[in-house]
């Protein structure tokens, strides 16, 4: 059992050649495997072959990006964050592989209007409809088709990474596209006199 390495020692050993690097890689691999396996086990989603595959990819990525480690956390925390990101990215790709952006938009655009239920008063139902009508007008006036498509996908739970993949873009660009869309709609709702409190009250 070795004493835990300090950050600088991890970097030095992983940049070394031969047995020094091999030993550091073995230690890091073991730590990433245990951490990832236990977090997935806690979620009831442990697939050992998947975990080993992801950790192998992570080790390659970490070795290629050692110069990006800035030392603001423990090295092993940084390495685990990279591993988790790769794992969830792979799971999202599998989970959403057969879902198109168009189907996400259609699910909202083609849905029938909702009827008032017993828990909603006629006045509250009318208020909800007025708000949604305002929102629909703002969407038509202020958003591009691309923004609306991304927004409906996000609303349906599609990860930004998957939206980006379908748009031939990247997560940052999609986040900015959506942020701009939300800002436009927020400005329009504020101009129409609606506040967050109004919405909470109408949809309580």
């Amino acid at each position, binding site marked *: 059992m070795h004493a835990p390495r300090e950050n600088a020692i991890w970097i030095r050993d992983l940049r070394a050649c031969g047995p020094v690097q091999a030993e550091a890689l073995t230690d890091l691999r073991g730590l990433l495997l245990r*951490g990832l396996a236990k977090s997935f086990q806690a979620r009831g989603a442990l697939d050992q072959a998947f975990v080993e595959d992801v950790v192998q990819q992570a080790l390659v990525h970490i070795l290629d990006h050692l110069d990006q480690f800035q030392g603001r956390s423990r090295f092993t925390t940084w390495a685990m964050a990279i591993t988790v990101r790769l*794992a969830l990215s792979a799971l999202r790709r599998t989970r959403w592989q057969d879902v198109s952006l168009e189907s996400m938009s259609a699910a909202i655009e083609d849905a029938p209007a*909702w009827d008032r239920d017993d828990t909603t008063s006629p006045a509250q139902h009318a208020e909800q409809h007025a*708000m949604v009508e305002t*929102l629909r007008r703002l969407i038509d006036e202020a958003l591009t088709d691309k923004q609306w498509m991304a927004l409906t996908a996000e609303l349906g739970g599609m990860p930004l990474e998957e939206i980006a993949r379908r748009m031939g873009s990247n997560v940052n660009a999609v986040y900015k596209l959506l942020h701009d869309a939300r*800002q436009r709609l927020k400005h329009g709702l504020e101009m129409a006199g609606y506040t967050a409190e109004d*919405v909470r009250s109408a949809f309580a």
Partner: protein
Amino acid sequence: MALRPEQAKALFEMVLGTRDQEMTCDECMAEIAEFVEVQLTGKPLSDAIQAVHEHLERCHDCSDEYDVLRQALEALAEEEGR
């Protein structure tokens, strides 16, 4: 467009919770290792790290990554403590 009430509510909340300046997912992930360590040790959040907290409240993907990372680190810490 015929949003169900829960979809309409979610969309309104997304829109009305928008800030002029928001951290992107890549910016959040660049800070996430430091953020999770601060959270696990119970230290107060600096302004820079506070932005990560705000992003996690808005972004389901990054929030999910934070949760898994935290679980992994907690499991390893428990293992070290044994």
